[in-house]
């Protein structure tokens, strides 16, 4: 993930609720590509309401052009809601499945690292392991870097999902005086 440059964060998370209709993803993705923006990561799945799906899109772009994309996105008839999550105010998670080399002499080290990262070994071969790890994207990046020295055979990440961070404090009681009807 490209880090923030300058004062303006360039990394944006859009959480887009869409109607569950054929072609919606193509419409959404097409809008980004038509305007020359790269989607960094994309995750789609139905929500608890089967009429809708949620698309989580991570883009690396400055705020002002993003505003235009967001507005254009909202013009799509099947797009119901768009929220932009501030990366500082969001909980982001991603899943990685990685097959790494694990020769007998290094196998112990690999297993140990997987444990440190709170990952799980989901498949074992004679000189390879398949590992699953879920977490914040930066943690996955770190894990990926470490595994590279042992040899990554294959790796797949899901693209991230995100939710807003929760309020830390109970909201102050609102004044009720003057409230009419």
């Amino acid at each position: 993930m490209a880090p923030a440059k300058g004062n303006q964060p360039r990394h944006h998370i859009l959480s887009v609720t869409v109607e569950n209709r054929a072609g919606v993803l193509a419409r959404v993705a097409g809008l980004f590509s038509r305007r020359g923006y790269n989607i960094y990561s994309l995750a789609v799945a139905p929500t608890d309401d089967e009429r809708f799906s949620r698309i989580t899109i991570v883009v690396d772009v400055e705020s002002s052009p993003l505003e235009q994309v967001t507005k254009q996105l909202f013009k799509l008839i099947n797009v119901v809601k768009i929220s932009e999550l501030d990366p500082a105010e969001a909980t982001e998670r991603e899943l990685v499945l990685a097959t790494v080399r694990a020769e007998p002499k290094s196998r112990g080290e690999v297993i140990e690292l997987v444990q440190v990262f709170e990952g799980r070994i989901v498949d074992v071969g004679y000189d390879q392991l398949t590992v699953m790890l879920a977490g914040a994207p930066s943690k996955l990046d770190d894990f990926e870097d470490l595994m590279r020295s042992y040899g990554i055979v294959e790796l797949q990440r899901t693209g991230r999902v995100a939710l807003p961070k929760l309020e830390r404090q109970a909201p102050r009681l609102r004044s009720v005086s003057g409230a009419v009807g």
Partner: protein
Amino acid sequence: MKLTGAQALIKSLEMEQVEVMFGLPGGAILPVYDPIIESTIRHILVRHEQGAGHMAEGYAHATGRPGVAMVTSGPAATNIVTPLCDAYMDSIPLVCVTGQVARSAIGTDAFQECDTTGITMAVTKHNWLVTDAQDIPQVVAEAFHVATTGRPGPVLIDLPKDVSNATMDWYWPNGVDLPGYKPTTRGHPRMIREAARLIASAQRPVIYAGGGILKARAAEALRALVDDTGIPVVTTLMARGAFPDDHPMCLGMPGMHGNYTAVTAMQKADLLIALGSRFDDRVTGKVSAFAPEAKVVHVDIDPAELGKVRRPDVPIVGDCRLVIEELVAAVRQQTEPEPVPDRGPWIDQIRQWQRQYPLAYDRNPPDGVLKPQFVVESLRDATPDDTIVVAGVGQHQMWTSQYWRFNHPYTWVNSGGLGTMGFAVPAAIGAKVGRPDRTVWAVDGDGCFQMTAQELVTASAERIPVKIAILNNAYLGMVRQWQEMFYDERYSEVYLSPDLPDYVKWADAMGCVGLRVEAPEEVGPAIDKANEIDDRPVVIDFRTDSSEKVFPMVPAGGSNDDIVVDPAHGEGGR
């Protein structure tokens, strides 16, 4: 009641009060062509699907009602992509139905299959691939709703052949269910007040009226706003007619080929009230140098237009007519500032520009050649005031928009955003179908005419008496002008023989009356003769001066401060 999908489609169009549709049949849409025989809907058989699309656009421009086109799959669908894109750019309500191969064949590269919804996704407001005949009435109702509400635009319904043939239980939906589509129509009250405050205190305000005024049927509201405030108005290429040219506060068209006063008044304004206009680059010139001192109030039904090009000081999302009415009320209530600024000097300045730089061309050319501007003026003067005028794209389009006097809304039919050559002939036919009571003149270029002239066969066969004035300058004139001005007069691939084709014979062959005009004194009689013919189309081949250019001009990418006026002003054009 059991119906086939095809019958349900036609019945749904009838429920939407469609009176006419433009199209051409073929294999995949064949089932739907069958129930047309019994339908109340008039079908006009075109000669090329592009014609169907532009006719539907012309119909929509002239009537405000959605235009409907129906064609088959594959090449027919690709032929209609240009009109869809044109309608998308100019926010024209259009409903296009395309046939599609049977569902089982979709994705197999079957004969005449193409991914129509995929291809048209980027040039429609929305499109549907119907997979169940039972959905047809619902989809049609949604399609008309989407095409005509909010920011209007084209929509497309792709209908597989087996779905047309399947049976369904007829119903008519009592509403649409589009949870993601809720256009905002009323302005935000705080923004309205803020706009009224800016309007009241501005010293050099200009109303920048765009095509949205016409889409929202807001011409009367605009008139009330101007009569209350005395603020001058520019009307963009898409808005010609939205405010009467005869009104003393009308400055005419701004932009690359706008007149000096309209362009300069915007440049010097301290407040631009942008109403249904989108800051197109042809209007703003170099954006960073556009109207540098102006605050901006921007009203648009489409939130994406606000801040797209220029960040407004007061953005107002809403329907132009409703918002202008709200603005008029707010301005009337406005008590501050006291005293109200004196706009006398501003209006005086504008009048001075108008006197100093009127639109000009050489009215007495030494060699007696026919000036295209003279042809447009003659046409204007010899036709009824409410004539509908259609243009192609190029020099002739700019001259028409400059030299016509548009005093009524919906009298100017034009391809502004996409700039589609070949628009005029079919769009004029569509306009005449929609408004048979009106005289419809198309002013076309010789290049444009050759792109879609065959639709005059449609017009003759269907007895649609449109009139076409070709300003035949023997060139792709607008391109020639750029080569002359910016490529050292190196004319590359822009010469069209003036005699090829023989337009009079061609017109004749297409069942029209053809006339040729070579000298200024023949102009009036030919126009009078054309105006008298009402039982078939007329084509006049006006042989005009090849070297004439469109002025004023702001060079592409240049600042509006660098506007070049016509050399006829005698100052070498500046």
